[in-house]
C-alpha cells in the first residue's frame, strides 16, 4: 500500500506547474467485519478501501478533491491527473483565500506496526464458541489501517497499524445489558475467552430486578467509559479555537468569564502512546503532549494552522476540524476498591448514551443511562436502574461537583467505523460527582 502511495505521489507531483503546491493524504484499510446477533453471525464480509485526498494551492486559492484508489496504477494516475486538471481550472474561478495554509517540509516520518492478529479465515471459529450460552450481539472489526501524507516540497509521512476490536453487548432475557470491548493487536485466544467470561459474570448482576429511580440530583460514580463519552463532547463545539472564535463553543465560560473546572480535572492531547499518527492532513506534526485543561484551568485550545492564520493565534498543529485525536485525562487518588464505599448512596453509571448539547454555552449535556447502571446504597450495588435521562453541565460534574477522580485510567478504544475504521481512543479514569441531575 505504501509503495502504491509513493508511486502515485511521484506521478502527480511531476504534473505540477510553476507556483503550484500539492498535498496528498491517504487513508485506507483491509478490514474484516462480522456482525453478531444472538451469538450467531448476522452479516459477514471484507472491505478493501483506499482514498486519496488532494489539497491544491495555486493563484492564492485552495481547492480540494479526492478519489478512490483502485489499485491499478494507470487508473489511479489518470484519476489523479483528472482531479488536478479540475482544480487548476477552478483555482481561476473561485475567490482568493486570505488564510492559505502553505505546505512545508519539516521532516518525514515512517511508522509501521505489525501484529500477530487473527487471520480472517479463522475468525468465526475462534470467536463463536466462547459466545455461546448468552445472548451476544456486536461487531468484530479486524485488519490493517493505513494513513499517509506527502507534499510536493518533499515531506512524507506513513503510518500503518494492525488491530482488532470486538465491541459487544450481552443481554439478559429481561433486556438488561452489559457492554464489552475487547481490542488489541496480537491475538490471544485465552485472553479473549477470559475477557468474555468476565462479561458473563457481570451479566449475573443484571439479573436482579431493575428499579426505577426518580428524577432529581444524585451522587454519581461514572465509570471511565462514561467519562470518555463526556470528554468526546469536547470535540464538538468545545475545545476548538475556531468554535470559540465563531461563538459556538461550550468553553466560552472558561475563555470569557475565567470559569474554572475542578482542580482535580486535567486533560491533555497526548500522542506518546503511538496509537494514532501525530501528523495531520496538512502533514504537520503535533507536539507529543499538549496540556489543554490543567488543574481545572483552560491552558490551550486546539488550534489548526488555518485558525491560527485567521484569528492571529499560534497553531498547535491540530487537525482542520480541531477535534481531540489522542486525549488523556489525568487520574486521581480514588482507588477502585473505595468507589462503592465513597459513593455510599447514589448512581453507578457504567455507560451513557446519545449525548448532545442541550445548552452549549452553558456546557449542558443531555443523554441517557445505558447498559450496566446501578442503584447503590450503603456502599453496595442494590439493583440495575431503568433507563433515565440526564441533563447537566460539565461545569458542575467536572467542576464544583467533582468530588474524586479514579486512581486508574483506562483506554476506551475508538470503535467507530463511519467512512472507515477509526484508530486510538480516550484514556481516562472514572469520576465521582457529588451531584448529577436526572430529568426524565
Amino acid at each position, binding site marked *: 500500500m505504501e509503495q502504491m502511495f509513493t508511486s502515485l505521489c511521484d506521478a502527480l507531483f511531476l504534473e505540477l506547474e510553476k507556483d503550484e503546491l500539492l498535498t496528498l493524504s491517504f487513508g485506507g484499510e483491509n478490514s474484516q*467485519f462480522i*456482525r453478531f*446477533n*444472538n451469538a450467531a453471525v*448476522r*452479516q*459477514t*464480509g*471484507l*472491505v*478493501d*478501501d*483506499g482514498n486519496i*485526498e488532494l489539497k491544491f494551492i495555486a493563484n492564492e486559492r*485552495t*481547492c*480540494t*478533491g*479526492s*478519489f*478512490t484508489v*483502485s489499485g*491499478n496504477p494507470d487508473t489511479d494516475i*489518470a484519476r489523479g491527473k483528472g*482531479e488536478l486538471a479540475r482544480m487548476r481550472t477552478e483555482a481561476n*474561478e473561485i475567490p482568493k*483565500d*486570505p*488564510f492559505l495554509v502553505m505546505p512545508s517540509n519539516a521532516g518525514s516520518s515512517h511508522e509501521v506496526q505489525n501484529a500477530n492478529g487473527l487471520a480472517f479465515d479463522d*475468525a468465526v471459529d475462534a470467536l463463536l464458541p466462547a459466545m455461546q450460552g448468552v445472548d451476544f*450481539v*456486536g*461487531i468484530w*472489526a479486524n485488519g490493517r489501517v493505513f494513513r499517509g501524507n506527502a507534499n510536493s516540497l518533499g515531506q512524507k509521512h506513513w503510518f500503518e497499524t494492525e488491530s482488532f476490536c470486538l465491541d459487544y*453487548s450481552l443481554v439478559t432475557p429481561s433486556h438488561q*445489558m452489559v457492554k464489552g470491548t475487547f481490542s488489541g493487536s496480537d491475538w490471544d485466544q485465552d485472553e479473549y475467552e477470559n475477557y468474555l467470561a468476565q462479561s458473563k459474570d457481570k451479566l449475573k448482576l443484571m439479573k436482579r430486578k431493575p428499579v426505577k429511580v426518580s428524577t432529581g440530583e444524585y451522587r454519581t460514580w461514572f465509570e471511565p467509559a462514561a467519562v470518555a463519552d463526556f470528554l468526546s463532547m469536547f470535540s464538538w463545539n468545545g475545545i476548538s479555537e475556531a468554535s470559540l*472564535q*465563531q461563538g*459556538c463553543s461550550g468553553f*466560552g465560560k472558561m475563555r470569557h*468569564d475565567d470559569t474554572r473546572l475542578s482542580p482535580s480535572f486535567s486533560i491533555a492531547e497526548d500522542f506518546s502512546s503511538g496509537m494514532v499518527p501525530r501528523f495531520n492532513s496538512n502533514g504537520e506534526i503535533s507536539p507529543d503532549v499538549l496540556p489543554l485543561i490543567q488543574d481545572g484551568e483552560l491552558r490551550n485550545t486546539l488550534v489548526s494552522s488555518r485558525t491560527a492564520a485567521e484569528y492571529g493565534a499560534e497553531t498547535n498543529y491540530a487537525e482542520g476540524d480541531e477535534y481531540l485525536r489522542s486525549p488523556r485525562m489525568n487520574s486521581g487518588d480514588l482507588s477502585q476498591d473505595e468507589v462503592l464505599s465513597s459513593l455510599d448512596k447514589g448512581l453507578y453509571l457504567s455507560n451513557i*448514551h*446519545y449525548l*448532545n448539547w*442541550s*445548552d452549549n*454555552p*452553558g*456546557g*449542558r449535556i*443531555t*443523554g*441517557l443511562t*445505558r447498559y450496566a447502571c446501578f442503584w447503590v446504597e450503603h456502599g453496595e450495588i442494590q439493583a440495575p436502574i431503568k*433507563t433515565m*435521562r440526564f*441533563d447537566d453541565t460539565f461545569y458542575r460534574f467536572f467542576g464544583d461537583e467533582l468530588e474524586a477522580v479514579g486512581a486508574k485510567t483506562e483506554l476506551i478504544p475508538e470503535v467507530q*467505523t*463511519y467512512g472507515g475504521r477509526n484508530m486510538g481512543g480516550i484514556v481516562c479514569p472514572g469520576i465521582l460527582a457529588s451531584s448529577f441531575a436526572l430529568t*426524565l
Partner: protein
Amino acid sequence: MKPDINIKDLISAVDVPADWVGIREVYEAHTPRVIRDGVPVANGRFATHGLMVEVLVDGQFGYYGTPDLTLDGVSRASKKAFTQARHAAKHSACSFTEQARPKNVGKYQSPFAKKKDSISAGQLNKILLDAYNHLKVSDKIVSARALAQTIETIFRFVSSNGSDITQEFLMVEFDLSATAAEGTNQQTRTFGGMRGTCRQIGMEFFDQWEIMAHAQKIGEQALELLSADETPTGEMDLVIASDQMMLQIHESVGHALEVDRILGDERNYAGWSFVKLEDFGKLQYGSKLMNITFDPTVSSEFASYGYDDGGLKATREYIIKDGVLLRGLGGMESQLRSGVPGVANFRASSWNRAPIDRMANLNLEPGNASFDNIISSVEKGIYMESNRSWSIDDYRNKFQFGCEYAKLIENGNLTKTVRNPNYRGISNPFWNSLKMVGSEDTFGIYGTPNCGKGEPNQVIRVGHASPVCLFENVQVFGGA
C-alpha cells in the same frame, strides 16, 4: 471521472459455486462549497467509486467491498466473499434463499431541470458570498456561513437471478447559518436546522429559493434571539414547525420502526425499540390524526428512489394509519425474518457497506388545520422551529429535543420570541397527544444527510416531510 465499466460483464467473472451472486456498483461525488465570514473555506470535490460483490452460500450472505473494478478484481472478490460466507454459514443467525434478493429490472432518475455543471464554481461562490453578506446584518453576528453541496450518485445492481437496475441521483444540500454573540450569550439560526434543506433537484434550486431574503431573515432572527428571554419552564401546548417535525418523526417514529432494530441487530450500537413484532396491526402509536407514509415517490424529496439496494421495488405504503401501526420499516431480509409486512428500505451508505434497514422518505400526511387555526386554538403554549439538539434513548422512548427559535403563544396569538427552547417526552404518549395536524399549505419537505446507524457504521440520507402540528401538555424548558 464518472464510471465507465459494464457491470453486466463483471458478473461473468464470478466463478464460485454460490447459490446467488449480486454486484452493486456505486459512484458518488460530493462537491461542497462554503463561504464563511466572507472567505472561501471549502471548494472541493470528493468522489468514491467501488463495488460490493455479494454471494449466498448455504443460506448465509458474504460480501467483499472492493475498489478494483476489473474482471480479475471481481473474481478475487467473489472468492473471498464466498469463503467468508462458507465459514459463517454453520453459525448463521438467519438462513436465506434468493427470495431475499428479488428479481427486478428498471431505472430511476432524480428529477431536475438544470444540470450540475450549469452553474460554475465561480458563480456558486458568488451566490454564497452574497448570501453571507445578507446574513451579516450586524457586527454582533460573529460568524456566518453559506453552504451548498451538490451530490451525484450512480447506482447499478445486477444479480444472478436477473436483476438489472440503474439509478442516477442529483441532489443539493444547502444551508445558511448566522451566530450572534455577546460574551457567553451565543445564538445560532440556520436554514431549517441540522442541514435540513436537502433535495433531489438540479441547479434550478438556486433559482427557486429566495436565498437572499432567507439569509437576511436568518441573520435578523439570530440577533433577535440574543436579546430574547429564556424559554419558560412548564407543561404547555407545543406547536412544532415542519423543520422540527422532521426530527421528531425521524427519531421517535422512524428508528423505532426499523425492523432490524426490533429483531435486535442494533442492540450493541443504535439500540433496540419499544415496539415489538406483535404490535404491528394493533398498537395505537399516536392519535387518530397520525398518518405516516413511507413514500419514495415524492418528487424532489431527498430519499426518493425506485429500488432499494437489495433490488426490491419501492412503493408508497402507509406505516401508521389513523394512529394504528400497520407496517414496519423492514426490507426483504427483515420481512422474511419477522413475518411483518415491510417496505423497500434495505439500503447501504456506499459500495463498502452492506445494506441494512434504513428510513428513506418517511412523512406525516397533512391534515386540515390552517396555521392560524392551530395557533388560535392554543391558550398557553409555544411554537418552535428548527432543530439544534437531539437525544433519545436506545428503546426510542425518552426523547429531548432543542430548537433554535421559539415564540410564546398566549390566548391564541403568537407573542414574544424566546431563546434556548427545549422539550422532552416519551414517544408513544407524545404521539397520542397529537391534537391538530396542519393542512397542505403548512407542509414542508426536509431531510438529513447525516443519519447514523449500523455496524460497521453507516451514514445515510433520509427525507421527512410534515405539516405543522400541535401536541398537548408537553414538558418545555429553556437554557442553563
